[in-house]
């Protein structure tokens, strides 16, 4: 490992450091846009903002889009009548290491058209910021918090961007980055002390935990009368 042994917060302040390991290439061979109706429509409408298109794992179409226009493009994919990607199945990220850009991945599914599409935004390691899509899909809320927690990507406009998996006062950085040491940056003794010093009541009040809405009154339509009872006219 070429990286010097670091301790404490110094390594975090330096930000992401490219790893030396050679990994798989981030982008595959360009594919034919005609293979997927949404990809052809995207290229027709947004032109150069659609940076790259490839097919992964047989039939999964992947488009790389301009990260500065992700909100516009994803909003169009959700609202255009020919697309209707109304289900955001996943938001995640991939760090390939080696100084390559970090990818934020949106996995979309169109329920009316029964079509899937994967949209990726490539972010340079020194500018890990992208617009939040919580305004488009509520399911992005916790998923973007997870990406922020584990990769350190800042989502502009997120209503509640804080850690979700790691402890709230976790100070060692973002664990799923390639430059994150496997056992963390602090000694085990320091980690144990910090873990036990957590004040859970400080972060999780009963008010915070109450995430659901009040139960809703549901009125079901009247069931039709069963046949053969003479009730039908």
């Amino acid at each position, binding site marked *: 490992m070429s990286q010097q042994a670091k301790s404490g917060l110094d390594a975090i302040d330096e930000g992401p450091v490219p790893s030396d390991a050679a990994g798989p290439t981030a982008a595959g061979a360009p594919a034919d846009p005609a293979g997927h109706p949404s990809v052809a429509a995207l290229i027709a409408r947004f032109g150069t903002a659609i940076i790259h298109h490839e097919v992964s794992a047989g039939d999964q179409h992947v488009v790389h889009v301009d990260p500065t226009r992700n909100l516009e493009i994803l909003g169009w994919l959700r609202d255009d009548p020919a697309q209707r990607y109304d289900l955001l199945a996943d938001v995640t990220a991939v760090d390939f290491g080696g100084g390559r850009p970090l990818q934020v991945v949106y996995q979309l599914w169109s329920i009316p058209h029964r079509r899937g599409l994967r949209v990726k935004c490539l972010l340079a390691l020194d500018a890990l910021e992208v617009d939040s899509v919580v305004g488009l899909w509520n399911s992005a809320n916790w998923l973007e918090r997870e990406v922020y927690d584990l990769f350190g990507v800042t989502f502009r406009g997120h209503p509640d961007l804080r850690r979700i998996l*790691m402890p709230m006062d976790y100070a060692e950085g973002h*664990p799923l980055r390639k430059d994150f040491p496997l056992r963390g940056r602090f000694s085990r003794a320091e980690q144990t002390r*910090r873990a036990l010093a957590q004040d859970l009541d400080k972060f999780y009040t009963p008010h915070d935990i109450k995430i659901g809405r009040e139960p809703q009154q549901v009125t079901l339509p009247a069931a039709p009368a069963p046949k053969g009872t003479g009730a039908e006219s």
Partner: protein
Amino acid sequence: MGVNLPGVGAGAGSGGLFGQGSPTFLTTKIDYVVNWARRESLWPMPFGTACCAIEMMAAFASDFDLSRFGMERMSFSPRQADVLICAGRLPYKLAPVLRRIWDQMPQPKWCVSMGACASTGGVFDVYSMVQGIDTIVPVDVYVPGCPPRPEGLIYALMMIQEKIRQESLTEHYELRAEDPARVASPRASDAEVVALSGPFGNSTQQNKLVGGMEVKAAPPSDDLIP
């Protein structure tokens, strides 16, 4: 006509265990009675975080039937529990929860670390995992296995019973007194935590810490047939 207990009362005859007449009494040692009561009614506090908890449930279910030992009452409140069974891996985020449960349990109390992850961190030698719960709470019995069979857990609880059998009220203070200042703090010192959680730490380091690194050949037992 009174209570009709075998060996007690009018119908028991002269061969009864307690003799004739009522009330009956017997003489014994207070240590024996107290330890008997404690070890035959251990109430476990299940702290199941992973697959070990499945084996723990199997141990409590009918095939293995831990209630034979007076332990059928799983205590989901630490305030009415005697044995903390940590079954499964413990992330650092959960460490204060385990420690608080231990602090809330009244003395006398014991702790079983069930499985490789709870005892040593197991395969999870990573940033998020406690490398052995003995850095957090004092552990009485470690159960090896990944996960251990229900028999392993039963054997661990029988070892706790054996431990209780050898206790005496005269050593109650040394064994059971707790320093209120140590609440919610790691059990182990910094040096010990580092030693325990090094690579392959717990199994070898525990030997080193208790001074048992010089493994001597056991003397041949007298029971062996030559």
